[in-house]
């Protein structure tokens, strides 16, 4: 049995966390910016609203694709989904450049669903699929369906890449920058509550300083998370502010912690101030847990954020493995950076406290 004392563990952490912070942040930044995005289809425009009235062409706009360089193995087909998906292959493929392509199709009548999925395949990019890419206004059902069986050699392209998601595209990388802000905020606020409780146990002002600095640092990260989130929302959801439980929850949490600052500044006496703000902080923390931890789960489909369903851009994606490799280090790095900033602030407040104490002493003497 090895007994590791809490203090020894804390010491090891104190000595090494800055190093780990830098290493993890570097991993997060390098991976988050440099790893390429997997190829995918951004848009597909059909030349006609009907798929049955005559042959039609589809203009395909790809991202990070190799249409020209892997021209020999290029195939395209549309799939009418149903109980038994039926593929219809393009009769001719006209490559414009690496990311642009024109596919010509024979007349097709859908079996049942008026929507077709589009697949473009080549050996370099693998199978690229776009959901409901083509819609038809035809009312004819179950007509002529020229079926075919395309040959697929590589399901996926073989280099390491982040998954391609419609609408998100490269902005998926915000996962390594925007999301860790929240983790950092929650970590710092949790640390603050721990210290609030420790303060109430023995009324040691040291814990009050710890809690207060953790909260101010947490607020900084929370505000950064809100601003960056708002910007990201503008791009993916087309609005600065979407009515989302998680977003509203965090905004309200910020309000309650700003109220904490007001409360703290409204009192002069230090002991009293520490005590009352500790009580309010515990209260606000518990409510925050309810607000961002419990209520969003109840609503399910209302949230646009991952883990709650309802959003096409996210629902299919539970952190992909390639994202995970960099996501965890990035979160750890940002949280440690938060801890670093907090510790500098805490030590500064200690210095200030010592100065004030020395002054009181000299005045008495």
């Amino acid at each position: 049995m090895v007994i590791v004392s809490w203090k020894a563990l804390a010491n090891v952490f104190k000595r090494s966390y800055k190093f780990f912070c830098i290493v993890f942040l570097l991993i997060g930044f390098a991976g988050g910016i440099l790893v390429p995005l997997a190829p995918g289809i951004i848009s597909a425009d059909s030349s006609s609203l009907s798929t049955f009235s005559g042959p039609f062409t589809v203009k395909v706009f790809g991202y990070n694709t190799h249409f020209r360089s892997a021209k020999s193995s290029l195939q395209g087909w549309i799939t009418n989904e149903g109980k038994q998906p039926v593929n219809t292959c393009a009769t001719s493929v006209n490559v414009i450049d690496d990311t642009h392509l024109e596919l010509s199709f024979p007349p097709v009548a859908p079996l049942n669903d008026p929507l077709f999925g589009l697949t473009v395949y080549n050996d370099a990019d693998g199978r690229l699929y776009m959901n409901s890419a083509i819609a038809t206004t035809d009312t004819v059902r179950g007509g002529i369906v020229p079926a075919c069986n395309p040959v697929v050699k590589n399901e996926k392209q073989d280099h390491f890449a982040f998954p391609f998601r419609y609408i998100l595209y490269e902005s998926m990388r915000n996962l390594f920058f925007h999301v860790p802000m929240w983790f950092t905020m929650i970590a710092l606020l949790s640390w603050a509550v721990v210290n609030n409780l420790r303060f109430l146990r023995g009324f040691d002002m040291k814990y009050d300083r710890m809690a207060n600095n953790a909260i101010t640092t947490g607020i900084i990260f929370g505000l950064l998370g809100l601003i960056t989130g708002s910007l990201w929302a503008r791009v993916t959801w087309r609005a600065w502010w979407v009515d989302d439980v998680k977003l509203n929850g965090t905004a309200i949490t910020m309000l309650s912690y700003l109220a904490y600052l007001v409360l703290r500044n409204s009192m002069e006496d230090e002991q009293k101030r520490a005590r009352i703000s500790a009580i309010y902080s515990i209260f606000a923390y518990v409510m925050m847990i309810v607000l961002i931890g419990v209520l969003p789960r109840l609503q399910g489909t209302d949230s646009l954020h991952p883990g709650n369903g309802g959003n096409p851009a996210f629902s299919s994606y539970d952190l992909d493995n390639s994202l995970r490799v960099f996501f965890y280090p990035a979160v750890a790095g940002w949280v440690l950076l938060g801890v670093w900033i907090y510790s500098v602030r805490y030590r500064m407040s200690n210095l200030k406290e010592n100065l004030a104490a020395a002054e009181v002493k000299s005045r008495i003497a």
Partner: protein
Amino acid sequence: MNLGRQTAALFKREILNEQRQKYALYGMLLYVVSTVFVAKFSFRVIKDVPAWNALFWIILLFAAATGIARSFAQETRGRMLYLYSIADPRAVLLAKLLYNCLLMCFLGFTGLAFYTFLVGFPVGNTGFFLAALFLGCITLASAFTMISAIASKAGNNFTLMAILGFPVVLPVMLAAIRLSKHAADGFGWSGGAAYFGVLLAMNIVVTGLAYLLFPYLWRD
């Protein structure tokens, strides 16, 4: 049980106090009624159920903020000191809490009566709606009681009460609005149970926190 007996005595004292200064209670009632009138004259009749429901809860929120802010603020410092010297602080809190729950329920139900009379009552499942109202009122009351105690310790002004209280009370409001809308839409226990549970859990958590933390708050 000592705590129970003290709480009962202090609760009686709260009621006596209220009887002695009836104008305060009437004032609050008048406040609710006049806000309902304002709602009436700005909307005439509200047919939209979510709007009707949300407006009612907003009226209740402000009634709670103004009504419960008084509960600690009205006590003079000397009277508070006297209370603490003869009674357990937790008994003081519990008495205030009970009294505020009663007050809030009274305001809620009379407010609902006026609101129904003037604006309308487009509720599908009345029984469940009343249960939601009851639960929402006591949860609001218990959250505001603690906030009122904090605000009264820190300078004691209404602005502080609002700043501190609204963000903390918002989860309660959200759950209460959702629950009562669910009832107003005519749905019953199935489906509403989750919100009912959350509201109940919040009530327990808030009351528990207040019970545990209040002794630290009162000592000067």
